[in-house]
């Protein structure tokens, strides 16, 4: 009878078995995905600042790509149009690179976004204290919790950043069409455009992961006894 109740002391002291507390990656991905799906609007708010910051980054980069595409034609009229649109071009310039001021603004927006993500994720961790505590009572290790939060942030980051990158690029191209006509889209170098999109997406993912690392660490270190708390 005793044997069916639970593993014996011998098993407990056997390192092979005592280490056997696992959460397969596939299962973690499933849990993280469901967690985002069920709390969709909560996740949306967490991701929104990222989407906006990444779309700004993407907008700036793709606008530069558009300008480069136009410059590459060597057409003086287009060059004039660019100068009228506010591009600071010297006579010898062959490329319209983003100005230091623009780069600063983009950097600042990304910084603000990172702080926003930390804030939103800390809130999410606080909301889920009981859930995390319960998981720990069921035998979850610190790293399971850490992994779940990182996976969630990674997925949110990927989707949010991709959406932001595409959105920003779309507006940059529309902007180009508005100022320079359809040739703005036609002349865009595709390689540069794809590069800008992937840079923006990667930056967004990285930002999301950096933003969640501290909240996830807080969550992972939580004591299981928190699950016992009665107050909400």
């Amino acid at each position: 009878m005793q044997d069916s109740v639970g593993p014996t002391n011998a098993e407990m002291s056997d390192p092979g078995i005592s280490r056997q507390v696992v959460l397969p990656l596939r299962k973690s991905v499933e849990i993280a995905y469901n967690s985002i799906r069920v709390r969709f609007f909560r996740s949306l708010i967490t991701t929104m600042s990222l989407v906006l910051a990444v779309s700004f980054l993407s907008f700036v980069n793709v606008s530069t790509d558009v300008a480069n595409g136009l410059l590459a034609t060597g057409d003086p009229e287009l060059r004039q149009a660019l100068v009228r649109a506010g591009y600071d071009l010297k006579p010898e310039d062959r490329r319209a690179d983003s100005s230091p001021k623009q780069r600063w603004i983009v950097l600042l927006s990304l910084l603000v976004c990172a702080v926003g993500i930390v804030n939103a994720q800390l809130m999410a961790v606080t909301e889920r204290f009981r859930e995390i505590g319960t998981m720990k009572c069921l035998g979850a290790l610190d790293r399971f919790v850490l992994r779940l939060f990182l996976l969630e942030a990674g997925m949110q980051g990927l989707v949010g950043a991709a959406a932001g990158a595409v959105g920003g690029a779309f507006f940059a191209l529309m902007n180009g069409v508005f100022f320079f006509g359809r040739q703005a889209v036609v002349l865009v170098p595709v390689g540069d455009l794809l590069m800008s999109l992937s840079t923006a997406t990667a930056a967004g993912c990285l930002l999301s992961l950096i933003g969640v690392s501290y909240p996830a660490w807080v969550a992972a270190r939580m004591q299981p006894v928190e699950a016992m708390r009665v107050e909400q």
Partner: protein
Amino acid sequence: MTTTKNIVRVTNVTKTFQLGKIAVHALKGVDLEIPTGQYVSIMGPSGSGKSTLFNMIGGLDKPTSGKVYIDEVDVSQLDAYELAWLRCRKIGYIFQTFNIIQVMTALENVTLPMTFAGMHNDEAIEKGMDLLDLVGLGDRFQHKPFELSGGQQQRVAIARALANDPAIILADEPTGNLDLNTGEEIISLLQNLSHERNVTVISATHDIKMLNVSDLVVWIRDGRIDKTESRDELTISIGRIDARSA
């Protein structure tokens, strides 16, 4: 059937909390032995050290001095992995607030500890369905927690606590958030499981209904064990209460 072995042994345990500059002695030297397969209730007023002792037995807190042995393993000697293992395999937790994971269905809640224990998915689902049948929720396995009543959520929690065939079930005020009838159902369910599966049930409670089914009642007062009563002694004292109130 029942071996005479003690599943939990607490020897001379003290616990001191530091609140600012004041040291609060929550437990002042507790000795307790809980035999395997019994239904044990820890009773005591708030602030008596009941919760502290309870958390200690559950491996959720470590004593300031003294030893807590769960199945003859000294809990304070365990590292993080071994503690997680202990929580996963040896102990099933039931909470006052049910603590069903909100984003998972009833079945997913029950199979989660089995996943942690490394059980294969199909096997876990099969066992999870059996456990939900056992607590009378076999047809509601796909429901989310908010679609279940309090009593049903607590049943899911009981099924989840049994997932890895633990030796101990720790129930912290399991009837605290339930009405009278539902509370009684939960108590009798716990009692049946304790007898059928030879699981030791340890519950911290205010609920007098719990006394009727307990094999052993531990009264805590002011950080010490006031008295421990077995069921035979208890019937007499309850009879006296009834006689007095009649």
